[in-house]
């Protein structure tokens, strides 16, 4: 369970919906790449870069390669926002 603020959750949902062209996409913590059409290794990097830009955070390659589902995205963003 992440401790991302509701406003940040909404922002993250917006990023996913825009990038994967699915206005009805609901972000569950256990959601992984195979569950979302278009979320492949190519779009993964676009997703990461968009999140970095919108949340004004920066991830290391180690952190990026460890991201397996939406829950991990949320936790990582929350940690970055706290330490920023």
């Amino acid at each position: 369970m992440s401790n991302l603020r509701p406003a940040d959750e909404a922002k993250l949902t917006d990023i996913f919906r825009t990038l994967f062209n699915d206005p009805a996409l609901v972000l569950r913590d256990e959601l992984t790449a195979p569950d979302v059409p278009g979320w492949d290794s190519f779009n993964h990097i676009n997703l990461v870069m968009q999140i970095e830009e919108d949340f004004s955070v920066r991830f290391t390659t180690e952190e990026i390669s460890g991201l397996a589902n939406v829950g991990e995205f949320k936790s990582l963003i929350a940690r970055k926002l706290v330490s920023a």
Partner: protein
Amino acid sequence: MSTYLNPAFYAAVAILYCGIQLQPAWCSRTVWFGALNLAALIALFGAKAAAAFFAFASLLWLSLYFLQRSKQGRLRLEIGTYGAVTVLFLLHKQVLLWTGVLPSSHPEFDKAAQVIASFFETIAFAYLYLRSLDVIRVVSNGGKLLDPLSLSGYLLPFFMVPAGPINVYVDHARINAEPVSVPTWSSFVAGIDTITSGLFLKFVIAELWKLYFIGLPGVWPTNGFLDSIIIFVYVYFDFFGYSLVALGVGRLLGIPTPINFKAPFLSTSVTEFWTKWHVSLGDFVRRGLFIPLQVSMVRRFGRRWSYATNLVALILCFAFVGLWHRFTWTFVAWGFFVGVIVALEKILRDRWVMTEMSRMEFAKQSQRILGPVYVFLVIVGTLHLAIPELMGQVR
């Protein structure tokens, strides 16, 4: 082959299975396994090989220790550590090539090359190299450095010596934080079942296949396309069998061991095939090479070029896989060619999903049926030119 036919291997598994349960309270699981593993390496591969391997692990540890603590010159140390293990890896590959073209006009040189090649092969240096890269990457990114004994247990688990897989450093380091699982009858049976399935695939299916097609002391014919198919099927059962034995032993001992095959022949694209064949290598390349290349190129050139830079990263990764198998132009070309096919598949797939036809049930069914046939022919086709080298022959 000799390791899994050696009764001492199974004695070592049995002793370590019991030994693991006797872990003292003052000792972490990775240290305890490291010590037991070192004893198994000495028993199976000899004191000299085990000592040389432990010297390598200790030097790597020392270098990472200073890397972790250094404030200045950190980058130089990181590059130096990557460089040193890569030089050793290249030496290993080069020596293998030299021994392949022996005898030369210098018998003493030939003898030295044979000794070095045999040492590198004994400790499976190709796998050791990739594990070393994994540790360096994690530690240089601020990850935890295990002690030398634990590190040696990660770098060369005795049951992964014959044919991998490439285990993950972070997973190995994590076992200290996990509760010790009490061995149960069902987990024991599951482990034994995996080992015996692997032995059956390797020593019954693969060897009968080989015996049927080339006979007892036979040499693999490598000229025709059909020859390549026969070899490829043999390699599949051989490698899958080895991987299952390692997986079963890993499960028995509670040491994280990745699954290496996920029904690759049911893949409907070459891209999918390479996520299901030698999975641990694919995962290593993804986290250790593809993502770092992707990130650095997208940051350097901007998101506008991400599609193109991703394609370049993809092709470079496959070229690396080719080079890792054999340090020759044939294998670079093979890796590059496979990379281009995967890149083309990506481009076509992105165009295809935009079409109405891609949503039709007929199209989906056709892909499910014809996909595996296409994949099999393309994989054997790309391997066809490299197979003589793979089998140690000159075309």
